[in-house]
């Protein structure tokens, strides 16, 4: 019964001291909670790579700038160039950029930044880059035919047939088979853009995905052997000219650097041998190297 009486403090003199102590402990606990977690790293480095760099020669300071569209092939080309004796003699470093579409193409070719560039002829022509920056065509990938590829039937090249159809095109305007030739065809047939449904896609591979998933009725693209597994060769319709040239390699010729010309041809030839099963495997040189350095 007397418990309450028993715990009453004998003296209240300590109360202010204890109150201060208690609130100090409260504040200390707040700080303990605040600083209980370890220091965090808030800096996020850049994740996007746009080039592959390798060291070639030691006694020179020049850099060979290469530009191409395919990221997967860029490191192989870089290694081939870095191991070439002529490149080692003339350049300290090789940097192979891979592009992000037409904007990058225009930057590297139009401004003459790339020493060796893989681009479409129409880009080079658009900027008159052969005269402006001295680009010289080294080699081109194989010519091909542009097609309208249907899923369930062979497309007809008539206005009546194409009216209201869903057609897959590439979203970059420099593509001949995926954009320029089909657009040219629609204009020739008098089809306005509101009379057909154009579905844009980022690549030839994603165009095929659209067709396979029945999101479009037909696509504008090239025909490759591996397409037989998914689509019928009977349902393709050739459009435009039959000699659409693939992309080309251009070299910026400063003077008469024939050693480098031949060395680059050799490297591109070796790359074509490495990539025989892909688009990059069928390479045609514009003119032979005078010193017969090309292995093909």
């Amino acid at each position, binding site marked *: *019964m*007397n*418990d*309450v*009486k*028993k*715990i*009453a*403090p*004998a*003296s209240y*003199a*300590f109360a202010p*001291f*204890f109150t201060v*102590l*208690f609130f100090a*402990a*409260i*504040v*200390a*606990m*707040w*700080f*303990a*909670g*605040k*600083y*209980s*977690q370890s220091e*965090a*790293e*808030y*800096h*996020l*480095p*850049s*994740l*996007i790579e*746009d080039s592959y760099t390798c060291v070639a020669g030691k006694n020179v300071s020049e850099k060979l700038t290469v530009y191409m569209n395919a990221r997967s092939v860029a490191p192989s080309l870089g290694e081939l160039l870095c191991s070439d004796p002529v490149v080692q003699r003339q350049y300290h470093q090789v940097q192979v950029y891979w592009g*992000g*579409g037409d904007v990058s193409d225009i930057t590297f070719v139009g401004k003459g930044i790339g020493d060796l560039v893989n681009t479409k002829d129409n880009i080079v022509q658009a900027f008159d880059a052969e005269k402006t920056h001295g680009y010289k065509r080294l080699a081109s990938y194989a010519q091909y035919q542009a097609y309208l590829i249907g899923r369930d039937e062979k497309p007809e090249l008539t206005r009546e047939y194409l009216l209201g159809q869903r057609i897959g095109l590439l*979203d970059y305007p420099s593509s001949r088979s995926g954009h320029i030739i089909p657009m040219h065809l629609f204009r020739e047939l008098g089809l306005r853009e509101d009379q057909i449904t154009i579905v*844009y*896609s*980022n*690549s030839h591979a*994603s165009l095929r995905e659209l067709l396979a998933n029945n999101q479009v009725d037909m696509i504008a693209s090239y025909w490759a052997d591996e397409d037989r597994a998914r689509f019928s060769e009977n349902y393709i319709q050739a459009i435009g000219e039959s000699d659409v040239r693939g992309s080309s390699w251009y070299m910026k010729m400063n003077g008469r650097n024939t050693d480098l010309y031949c060395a680059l041809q050799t490297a591109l030839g070796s790359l074509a041998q490495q990539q025989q099963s892909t688009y990059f495997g069928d390479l045609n040189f514009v003119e032979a190297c005078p010193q017969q350095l090309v292995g093909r």
Partner: protein
Amino acid sequence: MQSPGITYWGRKLPPYSWSGLGASIKSINRYQIGCFFIFYLALQASYFFGLSLQQEFRIERHILAVENRISLDLPRLSLPNPLLNIAGNPAQIRDYLDRLNRLLEQQQTPVRVISLQQFAAGDISDAGLMRASEQAHSHMQVERTLYVPGQTINLTMGVCQLTFWQTLSVFPVVASMLLGVLAFPFLHAKTPEEITGNEIVATENSAAKNAALILDLENKCLRFGTAHVSVLLANKPLCFYAALLTYCQRHPGARLCQHAPLPEELLALANQYFLRLVALGHTIRKRPDFDMNLEKMLSEIRAALDELLLDHPHHKTFFYPPKALGEGSRSKVHNFALLHIAEAYWTIKGK
């Protein structure tokens, strides 16, 4: 020779020993445990708020870091833009988001990207992007919008919340124990020496007030509870009863026999109370001999208590000096000490 003792805020603390420690642990009462928990809850709450605030701050900084990274990378990311007939590259975006999430996981940040525009990142729980320790956490979804000219970019992130156990810490426990150690000497049961002065029964309990015996030296009377009834008592029995109450409180289980000499302390207390009566101006007579006429004094006290506790007979157990039962009033074994006084409420006014 008096041994030096540790003093704390004017209080002499008992000398430290293992047996003393054990006794101290045993003497911890439920009020002290209650105080400890109040301290703990207050300190734990403070710790929790500090931790939560810092966590919110950290999460916001991580979110801003992710927003900043994505904003800087936007020109290189192939996001769809219907106005410009750009289809976008889902594979590139997914690859980018997965690499970003792997980086966030490596840096042990609590934030992951769930989606950018309509492109969802790989399942963060399956792709090894979530640490094993994060599996049990609850996750909050945060949506942010990035505004670029002509386009609005929606970014969704998942934030890993702290678990309940992560908000607990040993610091509040240790700190509340330390506070308890500092406060417990003041919350211990008081020694009899402490029950002095003008201390009135400290309680808010009205029942306790109602059952309290008040020995009023100023008015030379006994009162009980809040009733206005008071019974006057002569100087000698009044002082003796005050001394008896005090003595029995200090010495639970004491034996007081009529034929044995009364303890010196009891007599000294009685004399002290008499001197107090003199000081209060109630008498100028010389100090009586409390050892004489003990039976008569006890009878007067019992008579006064009979009158006072007429309506509360069960309280006699605490305050009534026991009568000899059976063994005869002159028995040598008769004990008139107040054996149950420690369980009762009483006070002396005008000490």
